[in-house]
């Protein structure tokens, strides 16, 4: 006999156990789908920018890039005010940093007035409205929330649960 073939039969397998194993298997398969929520980086529909790299997006949101690459257009970054899962997922995906760490980064600039953090808005709808009306706007929302009125320049798969 081929000793590498795994014997799946368990000596005392009851229906209850079979059910339990199957349920666990289903849960395991389903889990990644539950945990992954893609984040879309969005700009104005008429923006000359059609794609951005992860690094460019990171530099924009850290105030280190003031104009869109290969354009003359200034960047107006905006994001949601509260520290929610979407924000955590975004910063983890682009910079591998928690929102706490990002806030620590901005604290020093905030009080010195040397540069300003992304403009804070109170909801995703407000973000969408603002991006729709601001030619130089850039922000991020969950992929599933993206309307046709804005343009997606990068999609980030993330590992944060919603």
């Amino acid at each position, binding site marked *: 006999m081929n000793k590498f073939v795994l014997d799946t039969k368990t000596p005392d397998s009851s229906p209850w156990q079979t059910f339990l194993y199957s349920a666990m298997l289903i849960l395991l398969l389903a889990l990644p789908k539950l945990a992954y929520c893609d984040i879309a980086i969005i700009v104005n529909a008429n923006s000359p920018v059609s794609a951005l790299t992860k690094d460019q997006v990171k530099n924009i949101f850290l105030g280190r890039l003031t104009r869109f690459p290969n354009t003359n257009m*200034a960047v107006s970054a905006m994001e949601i005010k509260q520290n929610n899962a979407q924000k955590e997922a975004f910063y983890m995906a682009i910079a591998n940093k928690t929102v706490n760490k990002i806030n620590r980064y901005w*604290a020093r600039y905030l*009080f010195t*007035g*040397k540069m300003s953090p992304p403009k804070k808005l109170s909801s995703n709808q407000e973000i969408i409205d603002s991006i729709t009306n601001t030619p130089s706007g850039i922000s991020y929302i969950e992929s599933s929330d993206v309307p046709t009125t804005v343009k997606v320049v990068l999609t980030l798969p993330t590992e944060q649960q919603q």
Partner: protein
Amino acid sequence: MLPRIIILMLAVSFSPFARSFDYSLSGFLSLSAGILDEEGYLYADIDDSLSFNNDTILGGQISGQFTDNFSATIQVIARGYSADDSDNYKPAIDWLYLTYDITPELRVRAGRMATPYYLVSEYIEIGAAYPWIRPPFEVYDPSAAPLKSFNGIDAVLRSNWKDWFIISQFIFGQEENSTFLYEINIHRIAGLNLSFSKNDFSIRLAHFVSDVSLSVFLTETFLNLFRTDNPTPVEAKLFDLVDSKHVKHFYSSIGVNWDNDTWFVYSEYNQATSEAGFTPTGEGMYLTVGYRIGKFSPYLTRADFRLLLGSDLKKHILNNSSELPFLGPLFLNPIEDNKRYQRSIALGVRYDITNAMSLKFEALNATSQRGSVGLFTSKDSSITFAPPIRVYSLALDIVF
């Protein structure tokens, strides 16, 4: 004039007539207590009885955005510490400036701003923004950073070079400052600082030049007792040097910061030199290494400091000792008495209670060297040395 214009603009902006005016309010509070283990000495305002005044600070900042590229900022601070204790908790306008973004990269400001001598000079009041109870005195001592704020202009340029992000800042201005002990008049201050960042690392270079007139009231009164109508050239030079009028001061520094969110390192070296006069020349350095474990961030700081007073004056006296038989020794004594050498080691921990609130504790062991008082002040002015002293401080930092 400018302060009034800015206040007026802010007032108008808050009025019901102003529409779509964007403003942000922020504040910070540092409640601090300290004690040291030796009678008769002060470290800033800390002595051997527990005091809450020393580093306690309450501040508020309002920024108003008039248009997309035009804004105004005002920051008011009440400090628990003042040199003569007369102004404790008296609110003072620290910053009051207009900001104009000429391009997305270039920002100019005019008004009253923080003097950016060193790494954390501009946010030295905001304890929440750095790991220590207070930035190490070995670099941040007033002798090496005499101006918290100045009146003038600055230009801030953001640029990219390869993978590096560069912030260049140029400042130009003036400032006056006086306490019951001295009056300092900075006729001009000009400076440039460059900060290069890449990932978790940043390096900062800074150089400032200022034209300073210093009047130490006691010294002046003392000096006037010995002035004669016909001083010899050697005596006249001595008086000039002691007078310290229009002396050029230079402040140079290099600082590095590395923070990978688990480990963090801060290190700075500075040099403050003056061209002539009865003014301090010194250098300082520190190295801080810290580690974040959950909400705790313990750190260790090792620092060194050396300050000499009136090195040109001393040279003049020693070179002309035969012509200054009486005045020479008279001025050599205070020079010798004001040498300051210190080496310290501090162990501290920051505990983040919430995102906006942290509690810090620090134990500092400072050893004054070469028979000096180091960075301590002796309550008895005839005592010019200090034994090794331990300073314990506790602070609660809140931003809101």
